[in-house]
């Protein structure tokens, strides 16, 4: 339990540092930051804005105000849509925009991760079991080649051939699951595949090499000597001890996945977090950007914490070592 608390403490420190950094970004903007934020605002409005954004106060206070806002669900203001006209009210709140976008991105990444693992795990087990065979070599070479295909290239090619040319799905857009489950999956199929393919190769290769090592273990020979079937030995005895590295990397790879999603969402015009981030940059909405980045960092840190917890589920040795320590 103490180890868990310690870990949470560490993650907290990391989060504070991340948000400090993103909050500091606006100080780096050359010149008056309100000019790119709201190019058409009047001088009075600018002064008002500066006050609202606490730009007139020192950095620590501004950060404290921002944190206070975030805790109360206020992620700041988005000035990009209608320009800055109303004197006081916030035309569009960052929280509202993120509220709609976040679930879409999470779903997309969840599907991609799921698809990648569903394909990679059996392939990894199979290639490890048949290590050195022609099949193994073929799959490995294919995986190595897949690693070199950038996800945006795959996305564009899929969008062109499956979407525009074949007309099986619309090459852009997103449909809510509640609205039409079939169309939901249709629309997310191409983005999911684009994101998943690179991960499949990474996960498969990892699992394969760990699995080969596990298959050399005495307990696998022992399981064989018990007369168990190969399938049972592979799936029940060898997979779980071989999956720890895979799990770690799957957690760490959420970072890559987020980066990928930012690009992929823009290609398929899916209004998720990635789309919002690109839009915020394009419209130079630093306040919004700061919050988006913070939300993503929070999610990423949370995922890696979850991975840590899952570790203990998969490996009783760690569970007991932690309980003891």
């Amino acid at each position, binding site marked *: 339990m103490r180890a868990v608390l310690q870990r949470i403490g560490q993650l907290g420190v990391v989060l504070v540092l991340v948000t400090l950094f993103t909050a500091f970004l606006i100080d780096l903007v050359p010149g008056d930051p309100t000019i790119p934020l709201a190019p058409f605002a009047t001088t009075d409005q600018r002064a008002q804005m500066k006050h609202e954004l606490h730009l007139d106060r020192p950095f620590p206070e501004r950060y404290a105000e921002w944190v206070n806002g975030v805790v109360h669900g206020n992620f700041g203001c988005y000035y990009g849509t209608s320009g800055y006209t109303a004197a006081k009210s916030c035309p569009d709140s960052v929280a509202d925009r993120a509220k709609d976008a976040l679930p879409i991105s999470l779903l997309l990444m969840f599907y991609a991760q799921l698809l990648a693992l569903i394909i990679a795990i059996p392939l990894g087990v199979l290639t490890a079991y048949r290590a050195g065979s022609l099949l193994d070599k073929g799959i490995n070479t294919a995986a190595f080649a897949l690693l070199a295909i950038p996800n945006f290239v795959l996305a564009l090619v899929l969008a062109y051939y499956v979407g525009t040319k074949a007309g099986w799905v619309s090459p852009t857009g997103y449909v809510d699951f509640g609205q039409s489950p079939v169309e939901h999956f249709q629309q997310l199929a191409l983005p999911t595949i684009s994101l998943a393919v690179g991960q499949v190769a990474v996960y498969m290769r990892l699992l394969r090499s760990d699995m080969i090592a596990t298959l050399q273990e*005495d307990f696998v*020979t022992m399981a064989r000597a*018990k007369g*168990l079937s190969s399938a*049972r030995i592979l799936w029940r005895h060898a997979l779980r*001890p071989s999956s720890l590295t895979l799990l770690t990397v799957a957690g760490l790879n959420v970072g890559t996945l987020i980066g990928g999603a930012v690009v992929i969402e823009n290609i398929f015009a899916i209004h998720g977090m990635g789309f919002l981030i690109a839009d915020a940059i394009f419209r130079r909405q630093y306040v919004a950007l700061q919050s988006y980045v913070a939300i993503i960092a929070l999610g990423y840190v949370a995922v890696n914490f979850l991975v840590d917890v899952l570790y203990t589920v998969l490996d009783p040795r760690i569970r007991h070592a932690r309980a003891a320590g």
Partner: protein
Amino acid sequence: MSPLRRRKEVTRTISARPEAGHLLEITDLSTSFKTPRGLATAVNNVSFVLDRGKTLGIVGESGSGKSVLSRSIMGLLPKQNVVRDGSVRFEGTEISSLSNSAMRQYWGTEMAMVFQDPMTSLNPVLKVGRQITESLHYHLDMDKQQAHDTALALLKSVGIPEAERRLSEYPHQLSGGMRQRVVIAIALACGPKVLFADEPTTALDVTVQAQILNLLQQQQRERDMAMILVTHDLGVVAGRADEIAVMYSGQIVERAPTRTLFAQMRMPYTEGLLKSIPKLEQPSHSRLQIIGGRPPDLVAPPPGCKFAPRCPYAQEKCHSEEPPLVEAETPGHYFKCWYPVGTDAGKEALERNLAAGLPQAIAAVAGDAIAAAKVELAV
């Protein structure tokens, strides 16, 4: 599933009726590994028979091929990079040519193995109970309750206290000795007819070694099971085996009923092994006699007797001509030597070597470790 079960019933009925044939019959078994340097022959033309309820001790140094032998008999070696020749008959059935899936009918139920290191031979992420009940479900088709009860009884029979609690524990929560007891319980679970114990005590504390060996012996007697006890320690098998086979460089160099072997050993290598066991009657700091030099290269073994380069008795002939495995005057006693220990030929050979100042001969007589070290340098 169904062919498997049918097959089991068949074997059951066969074993129920007393039979004249041997339980296990190994004829000219050879096993080689493909290595980058060439074929390494780890088991070379090994033959022996094993009957129900008997214990065979296989003794030899590391690299003598004794562990490979037991895995080769069971068919547990990987198919790639391994070349296997010869015949293995179990209850009269040839099993050396069977596929892995056919062998599964034998593994666990007919023949089982206790591995050397209990630290690595249990799956770290599965509970002890699961690892025992697994084969009970799989082979004997027991339901959950039956399997649980059987596992509990097994753990008790191998002397594990608080067996009920241990069932739901993981291997890392048990001590080395306890783990080896669990491994034995797993091996015994489906009532095998022959148990291979591959250096079952090497990885354990000295104090636990005797307990585990006694446990194995007790189980073997109770179950009228045959056992092949593989060890590097002649002392381990001395009181426990009915017959002992001494292995060197993949070959059986001497084989005899235990009593005969100790009383009239013929092979200089066996003599060396025996002398390397410390005896209680010796003063506590007396030097141990050791065999200098190393076991030969398995890829390119010496042309004559494999032991000749290290042998205190070795003559010209030994280096060029390989001795055959011949029967001694006592029936059932075989050895592979031109100048056997305890014969006039052997005595003369040793004297000649002493006179010539051959270091291993001096070492064998004087028990001089320095001389033995010289042998090591020379070989």
